[in-house]
């Protein structure tokens, strides 16, 4: 079977190239001593955990392997006001670490942090080599939190993370500044939206010109998917009212699907948008609003005073239903983010096997089994991720449809 052998060869070559490109991006270079920012290899060799977390996180720089594309920074600190500048001003080096501090903001691992100490000079300040140290500190409630310190001119400055809305539960909380920057995820999101708009407006024109003609070109590709979502998701759950909610479900499905796929394409930065809890939370929030705005009298009655059950059960049901009201979007949020992030982590780890096996380039004998393992496993994982991308987009849409369907259902 020459065809399949050729294909296997091609895939192997492809993975070799992939490993070559992703390698440096993931924190591994053989001539690491040349890059002054390289810290992982100088101390403990290749660190797959750090690489993986670096990869799945949202960043203030779009790293394409060969280029660090700067993104706009929009930062607000209550004590310092609004600051807007390009993240290129940080002088982004390897690993997304900035060479400069700008108005007491620094870029660590592609993420902006703030120097709280007012004694640090404002404006653009050149930093030393390897200025960042990471320390684990115990907080008052006993949980460990990691804190980054910056050394500059012999002094050590504590760096604040950006504010998060978890109230400290997930190691975040409100800090001295808010980051409203256009991050890698937002750029990817907008690109995906523009792509979808372009494709759909193009095919929509054909439907408007003459709705009766047979589909052609990109239309023939999109129409079966469109009809599938309409007939398998919208109609069964929403019944006669399906046409009203169809655009929303389509928007959800195609946006999630496109972003899932964009995250899987190699060499374009593997943005983890749908794996980001904040993004999925925004989607689930919109679903939550759509569901509850359209809730009928029967729906609210079922939620707060369930008919048809004994009176003493009713308060218990109310509590359960009330929790369920919020649990539904939370479940939507977590499922999508967890699935996509897990996929990203698995792929990065499988590709990392190569660097673990050859001991970050020190052990050439380990390269062969490493390459073999990482190629086969990463290939398998990518195939799996294509299915997961489809399934998760579908699941998010079908669950949204079922929640809306339950809310608009009339009393029976």
């Amino acid at each position, binding site marked *: 079977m020459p065809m399949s052998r050729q294909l296997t060869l091609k895939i192997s070559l492809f993975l070799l190239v992939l490993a070559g490109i992703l390698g440096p991006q993931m924190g591994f270079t053989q001539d690491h001593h040349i890059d002054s920012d390289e810290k992982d290899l100088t101390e403990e060799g290749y660190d797959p955990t*750090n690489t993986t*977390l670096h990869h799945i996180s949202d960043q203030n720089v779009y790293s394409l392997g060969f280029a660090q594309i700067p993104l706009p920074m929009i930062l607000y600190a209550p004590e310092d006001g609004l600051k807007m500048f390009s993240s290129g001003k940080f002088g982004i080096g390897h690993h997304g670490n900035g060479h400069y501090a700008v108005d007491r903001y620094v870029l660590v*691992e592609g993420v902006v942090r703030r120097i709280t100490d007012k004694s640090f000079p404002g404006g653009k300040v050149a930093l030393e080599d390897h200025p960042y140290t*990471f320390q684990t500190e115990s907080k008052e409630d006993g949980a460990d939190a990691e804190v980054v310190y910056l050394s500059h001119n012999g002094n050590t400055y504590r760096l604040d993370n950006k504010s*998060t809305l978890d109230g400290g539960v997930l190691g975040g909380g409100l800090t001295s500044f808010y980051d*409203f920057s*256009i991050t890698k995820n937002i750029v990817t999101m907008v690109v995906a939206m523009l792509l979808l708009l372009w494709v759909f407006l193009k095919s929509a024109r054909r439907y408007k010109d003459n709705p009766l003609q047979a589909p052609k070109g990109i239309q023939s590709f999109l129409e079966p998917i469109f009809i599938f979502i309409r007939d398998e998701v919208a109609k069964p759950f929403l019944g006669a009212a399906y046409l009203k909610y169809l655009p929303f479900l389509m928007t959800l499905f195609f946006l999630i699907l496109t972003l899932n796929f964009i995250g899987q394409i190699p060499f374009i930065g593997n943005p*983890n948008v749908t794996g980001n809890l*904040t993004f999925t939370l925004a989607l689930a929030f919109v679903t939550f609003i759509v569901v509850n705005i359209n809730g009928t009298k029967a729906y609210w009655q079922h939620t707060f005073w369930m008919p048809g059950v004994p009176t003493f059960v009713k308060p218990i049901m109310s509590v359960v239903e009330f929790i369920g009201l919020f649990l539904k979007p939370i479940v939507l949020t977590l499922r999508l983010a967890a699935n996509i992030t897990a996929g990203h982590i698995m792929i990065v780890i499988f590709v990392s096997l190569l660097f673990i096996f050859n001991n970050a380039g020190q052990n050439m004998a380990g390269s062969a089994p490493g390459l073999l393992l990482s190629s086969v496993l990463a290939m398998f994982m990518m195939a799996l991720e294509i299915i997961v991308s489809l399934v998760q987009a579908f699941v998010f849409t079908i669950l949204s449809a079922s929640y809306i369907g339950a809310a608009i259902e009339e009393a029976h």
Partner: protein
Amino acid sequence: MFVLAEFNILRPEPGLFFWSLLFFLIFWFLIAKFAFKPIANALVKRENHIQDALLDASKAKEELRRIQEENTRMMDEARVLRAELIKEAKLQSSKMIEDAKEKAKEDARAIVAQANVEIENQKKAALRDVKNQVTALALEVSELVMKKNLSEDKEQVQLVNELVDDIHLS
């Protein structure tokens, strides 16, 4: 070196949330208004059109089948009618021929009968004529033969007449 501080994807960030929500709403508005609604409506329209076309086609087929059945039925009827007509015509014609034959025979018989009567009459007339002539001849002859005697003798004349009467030309 463990950099969990990086792991920001699990923490809801106000900035990312704000932009995600904003861009999602804009995107939803635009693509729903300019793409999904027109496409959904066009699909409904096209499906109705196809449904109608299919119904029309099946109706037309039914109609065609009906017409064909009607045609077959009419053809059959016509065939039966034709057969009947032909049969009747045949009967009629044979009857006519039969009648004509009969009539011709009768006519011929009548003609022959008339001819016989005529012949009989002619014959009778001819006989009467012959008889008269014979009588006249006989008388003439007798007169000539017995001019003298017979004219006086009454008995003689009577005898001759009797004789003439006896001469029956049969």
